[in-house]
């Protein structure tokens, strides 16, 4: 049945960053959408091999990256993610 997708959150106007020079130590907040069958398995393997990756990358596992809709990427940006990485 039809329903309204209400905005889950509204970015408070006061928290919006104005364009500024990027400090040297700044790290972007990156969200990775990874396919269960390839990219996520690779990340898993990296873990098994005790390889490390930067902590500013967070991974979301998808059954398939074909599941990724535009809105998922846009929502990440709405919530303050700086970069989205899709691997699959």
């Amino acid at each position, binding site marked *: *049945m*039809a329903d309204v*997708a*209400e905005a889950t959150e509204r970015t408070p106007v006061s928290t*919006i960053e104005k364009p500024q020079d990027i400090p040297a130590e700044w790290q972007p907040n990156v969200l990775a959408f990874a396919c269960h069958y390839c990219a996520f398995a690779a990340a898993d393997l990296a873990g098994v091999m005790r390889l490390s990756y930067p902590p500013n990358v967070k991974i979301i596992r998808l059954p398939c990256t074909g599941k990724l809709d535009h*809105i998922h990427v*846009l929502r990440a940006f709405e919530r303050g993610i700086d970069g989205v990485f899709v691997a699959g």
Partner: protein
Amino acid sequence: MIVGQQKPFDEIWSMVRDFKKVLVYGCNTCVAICHAGGGKEAEILASMLRMKAAQEGVDMQVDSAAIERHCEPEFFEPLDEKVRTYDLVLSPACGVGVNFLADRLAGAIPVYPGINTSFYGGVPEAGFFVELCGGCGNCILHLTGGICPIVRCSKSLMNGPCGGTNNGKCEVSDQTDCAWYLIVERMKKLGTLEKLLEVQPPRDWSTGTHGGPRRVSLEHIRAYEEKEEKNAATEGK
């Protein structure tokens, strides 16, 4: 199907910027197929408007929804009440949908268009749409091998081609096929070329778009519906 294209984002923003609570209300039929105004596009547009509002320091709530069709009353019913809680409906449905909803809301809240409705067309390949009919109200495709000279010929000629036909292309643009070239080739294949020797008289445009809104009324269906309603009313008594 009806084909449309989303309006430039800046134009949309200038329409909606003064409202506090906006519903982007998509239609999941034609405009979803042309990636202009279905549920997905409504979600995307709502998200872009939220980000724009935040960037501009405008306090605005933007939600999205979509129903299967914006041109029949039944589909609107489940969301009717909710829709009326907004200050503005931004509708990326075709112009029919925008009109239909605006009539339905009868001035309670405004309904603004999110897309430019372009034409009735087909989808020969994914992401490509072409105009194939102009809804002239008096179809003559049986005379032209199934190729519409009203919209596919730049001059809507009834007896073509004109002198501008150029190696299968129209003089208006080398990107545009000459409809009358296509008609002649099609009629050759169909073995009916000699039919084109018959000169078509000037067209009667009274069935066209210049005499106010056109209507189609199926009396047998309307009579049946009326009877059903009466029956239901007497049973309910």
